[in-house]
């Protein structure tokens, strides 16, 4: 019998490739968003699930990268080949600065990252001569490289899918590397890793910067999908929702953040079709997750599987 995980992965890939044919525009759009926000949630989870740091500033890298691409493309006519890497670079550079937060731990780290996030939001909103204020930057074109140009949301969906799959494979290599192991060691017990001779601060800093780079990739994908960017992209709720997606799906996994993104975006889409209060619904999901599913859906599935296995053997 072939490996069931491989079969499942291939089936998912086939479904993803066929989606625009049978899903139509609505589902293709929703899944594109799910992939983009899943990537952002994955970047949060590199810190949360592997290094044990709870960052609430990831909307900053996401937005700085999105703004960089938008401003370069719209205002200066810079082509995608340069604008997209510049976006990732800008977000990563910001990560180098904000990464100083790893000097703190626990609740201080959480609070300081919140404060950092507000600096970026404040700039996006108040430095309106550069960022466009509340309106942001509009009319971002689809990406185009040389003669090859994306012309529809369906084509863009395939691009996002390819990028996400590529990133996920690199991510898998990263978290299985000695570096990933060291991060989980620090999460388990930082003092033990220190006494083993690891420079834990440096490891966490590197993880923070990598995580910022990943969030920046999501930011680039976001701005070309959305075709505009405004201060909402940098706001606190995005950072919290990204963390929530990782937690709802299950931290420390690769598929978890994407499942979480799908659940949350799907829920919001469905709910907002009959009530306006989508923030209250999000809030209720936060509360329910903490109280009833702290390990997320992947954790929940694992628990159920374990129970079934016990029954079978019992």
């Amino acid at each position: 019998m072939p490996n069931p995980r491989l079969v499942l992965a291939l089936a998912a890939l086939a479904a993803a490739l066929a989606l625009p044919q049978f899903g139509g525009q609505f589902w293709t759009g929703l899944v594109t968003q799910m992939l983009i926000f899943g990537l952002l949630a994955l970047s949060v989870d590199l810190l949360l699930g592997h290094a044990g740091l709870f960052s609430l500033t990831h909307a900053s890298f996401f937005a700085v990268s999105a703004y960089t691409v938008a401003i370069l493309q719209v205002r200066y006519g810079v082509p995608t080949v340069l604008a997209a890497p510049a976006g990732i670079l800008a977000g990563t550079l910001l990560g180098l600065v904000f990464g100083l937060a790893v000097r703190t731990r626990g609740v201080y780290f959480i609070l300081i990252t919140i404060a950092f996030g507000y600096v970026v939001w404040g700039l996006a909103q108040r430095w309106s001569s550069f960022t466009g204020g509340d309106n942001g930057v509009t009319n971002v074109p689809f990406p185009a490289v040389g003669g090859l140009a994306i012309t529809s949301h369906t084509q863009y969906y395939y691009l996002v899918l390819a990028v996400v799959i590529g990133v996920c494979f690199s991510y898998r290599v990263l978290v299985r590397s000695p570096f990933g192991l060291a991060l989980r060691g620090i999460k388990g017990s930082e003092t033990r890793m220190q006494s083993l001779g690891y420079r834990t601060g440096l490891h966490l800093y590197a993880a923070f910067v990598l995580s910022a780079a990943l969030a920046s990739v999501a930011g680039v994908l976001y701005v070309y999908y959305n075709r505009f960017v405004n201060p909402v992209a940098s706001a606190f709720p995005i950072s919290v929702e990204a963390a929530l997606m990782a937690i709802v799906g299950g931290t420390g996994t690769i598929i978890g953040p994407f499942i979480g993104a799908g659940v949350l975006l799907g829920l919001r889409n469905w709910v907002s079709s009959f009530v306006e209060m989508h923030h209250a619904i999000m809030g209720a999901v936060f509360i329910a997750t903490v109280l009833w599913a702290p390990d997320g859906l992947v954790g929940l599935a694992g628990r159920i599987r374990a129970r079934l296995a016990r029954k079978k053997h019992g």
Partner: protein
Amino acid sequence: MMTSAILQAINGVSLAALLFLLASGFTLSFGLMRVVNMAHGAYYLLGGYIGLAVGLKTGSFTLALLAGGAAIAVIGFFVDRFLIRHTGENHLAQVLLTVGVAFVMGDVALQVWGGDNLKVPVPMFLRGAVELPGGLVYPSYRFALILFGAFVALVLWLLYKKTQIGAVVRAGVDDREQVNATGINVDRLFVLVSALASFLAGLAGVAGGAFLTLYPGAEWEILVYALVVVIVGGLGSLEGAMIGALIVGLLDAYGRWLLPEFSYFVLFGPIALLMLFRPRGLFGREH
């Protein structure tokens, strides 16, 4: 130029008075209960709205202040008892949970009071301006707020340092298990401190709503300021909250005046630097 500089200083101190009201409760409830309550901003906004409703109905600002504070003390009690209690000492869970509570409260407030900027009516005798020595003219209300903030700070300080209850709370901040072992009911103490913290947050909402106005989103803006105050001062320290409030209030006032587009940088830049050298703030301790 000189007069503007002085006016900005008074602006900063009056903001500091407001921030202290909010941050003192936050910092004390962390110090004693190890609870990070991100719903404090929502408490502020909801307290302000409730105070506004009572103020419009009764015409009394004092009643508005008390009603805002009391309503939030009750709500805070239920949030504490039925939600936060379940998180133990897991800060990540607390942050997520209380952010969720704040989202729910913010959305409910939006449905009830709408999206406009609303202002809590100020009592007659505080509506004008006072003339200060040197020919400076300044709104009476914000001046009164400074006095009120100083008064609350003094009362809290006396309560904390000079009374039996304060001594027990301080002991609880240092070592909770020990206090429990001496036969003091720490649980009852928690309820007391958490009620006080919520009361102050609701009160701050009414006081702040009279000059900063109340609007959706105000809960997060004020919360971030309060967070910076406690980061600077050090979590769990009352003196830290006082000094931190003054630093943040003054930086914000001068930042807005001198570099309006970059005012957040002026505020957060020095704080990021401080964090590099003193990650636990000016008066913070190991937790």
